[in-house]
């Protein structure tokens, strides 16, 4: 009975961890899938979202769930700013992204990533900080679940499923999906490609920064300028596992990674568990480049 409880709670924690990973990677997935650009600085925007939640908590007494809403709203502006400064020149008037433009976006966002993390050290100092928010636990049979993590899980699933419904059911969502498939055809039916691509980027950033705020519930003392170096590779692996552009893929990839890390931690040191999780990327790219589920 006790052993079963341990296994069950391990699994449940893996699933909850997977959901928060999924929402953190979801913004990257949306941008990657639609505009076909990988933002190497993705982790730094998660870091920005986490610091946003931290400062809202320190100065406004906001809890991370409330901060996620504020961060999400800010993320829209950040996303538009990113699109017009980094992507617009490379994507404008092109039917598909060229190899040259791809290199430009990779290198410039890599520069941005180190610019942001090094600037954050100066602005926020290199110290680890965290948000002290614990809404208690709930008893589920013989399991004790922390309520904070449970709320985050629910919100994460809600954000991802809302984005799926938005893309499937609304006019503008359909335009985004169309853009991801064929830019010329999207233009032919009267959608402005710049508007569509910039909106998708803005939504991606909104989700990323909200994800950063939700993540703070899981890392009570883990907000620091270099946290991007952990969550960016996690996001890359999740998106590749799920298949870039498949919205439910984030959830699938996140859950896989969460459970893998949680189970491995029982056998090897934490850093090795993460190293193995990072390296999952290679076999998936080799054998299932379209994601683990077709």
């Amino acid at each position, binding site marked *: 009975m006790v052993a079963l409880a341990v296994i069950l709670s391990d699994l449940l924690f893996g699933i909850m961890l997977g959901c928060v990973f999924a929402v953190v990677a979801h913004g990257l997935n949306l941008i990657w899938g639609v505009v076909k*650009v*990988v933002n*190497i600085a993705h982790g730094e925007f998660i870091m920005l979202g986490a610091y946003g939640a931290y400062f809202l908590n320190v100065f406004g007494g906001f809890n991370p769930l409330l901060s996620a809403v504020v961060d999400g709203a800010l993320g829209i502006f950040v996303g538009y700013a990113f699109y017009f*400064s*980094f992507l617009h*020149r490379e994507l404008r008037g092109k039917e598909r992204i060229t*190899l*040259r433009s*791809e*290199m*430009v976006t*990779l*290198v*410039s966002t*890599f*520069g*941005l*990533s*180190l*610019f*942001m993390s*090094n*600037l954050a*050290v*100066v602005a926020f100092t290199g110290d680890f900080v965290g948000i002290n928010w614990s809404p208690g636990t709930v008893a589920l049979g013989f399991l004790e679940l922390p309520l904070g993590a449970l709320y985050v899980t629910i919100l994460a699933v809600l954000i991802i499923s809302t984005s799926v419904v938005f893309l499937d059911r609304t006019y503008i969502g359909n335009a985004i999906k169309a853009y991801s498939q064929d830019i010329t055809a999207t233009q032919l039916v009267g959608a402005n490609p710049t508007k569509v691509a910039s909106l998708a980027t803005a939504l991606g950033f909104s989700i990323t920064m909200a994800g950063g705020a939700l993540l703070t519930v899981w890392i009570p003392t883990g907000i620091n300028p270099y946290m991007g*170096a*952990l969550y*960016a*590779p996690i996001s*890359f*692996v999740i998106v*590749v596992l799920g298949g870039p552009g498949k919205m439910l893929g984030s959830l699938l990839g996140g859950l896989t990674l969460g459970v893998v890390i949680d189970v491995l931690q029982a056998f*090897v*040191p934490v*850093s*090795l568990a*993460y*190293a*193995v999780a*990072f*390296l999952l*990327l*290679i076999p998936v*790219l*080799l054998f299932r*480049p379209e994601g683990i589920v077709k």
Partner: protein
Amino acid sequence: MRIAGLGVTFFGLLALMLLLLILPFAFPFSTSVILINLLFYTALAYSINFITGMTGYVSFGHVVFLGIGAYALGASADVYGLDPVLGVLLGAALGLVFALAIGLVTLRFRGVYFAISTVVIALAALNIVLELPQLGGSQGIILNLGFQPYSWYYTIWGIVLFEMLITYYINRGKLGFGIRAIKSDEDAARSVGVNVSALKLYLFGLSGLFAGAGGAVFAWTTSGVFPYETFSLNFSLQMLAMIIIGGVGTALGPILGAVVVYLPSYYFLTVAIGTQLIIIGFAVVVIALFIPEGIVGTLKRRSASLRELLE
């Protein structure tokens, strides 16, 4: 091997290297320490130029070979008391072996997929080293090799000279045609009979070899290997910054970029600590977006006479 009509750039670089050969005797020690660092960054720039500059495969995780070289020298000197010069050779050999092994798998991926797999490998390598007590874990290895500026200087000078000559050999020779074909259109290159996979692996191996040698010299000069420092992606940023600012794929670009990146950042290091990486990061963003050909590429495009002279 067909190297016809070596131009002004070649003899200019050769003259510069000869000047650097005698410079330590003409100037005080402090200058030669700056020169050692400058040559170290130049060596890194030429190393990443082999793969990212010549083929357009962006290797963000290049720091992994630097780390392997550093640990090769650190562990061999610490445990077996190996001579540091042999440690550098060992670093180069291990850099080559790891580059071939990693390249065999990752060079199958194109564009963003290659780039993110290199990032992920670099971060995984750091996490693995942290858990290896044989390599000192998170403490790293502290070496006691002493202050040997002349040995450092001529070792790194030799590495840079080799890199320049090989860069010339590749760009001017038959290999260069195949490699430029890969950069402009890999599928087309393959279809006209260029052995794409072998060429990419050859270049990746070369870049791993020299990054390994450079990393070993880094461990030697800093008398220690520390995991967070040696596997820092900031090194990758600096390497990329140098070839992007200088001009990707060219023979002159890497050393030009190293001078332009290193000398100001040396200045900022003494004036405002912690700001040099912010400025380099910003410079990379601006240059990648607005002048992606770098200094050499832009000069060549602007002026017909310089097009003949610079390479």
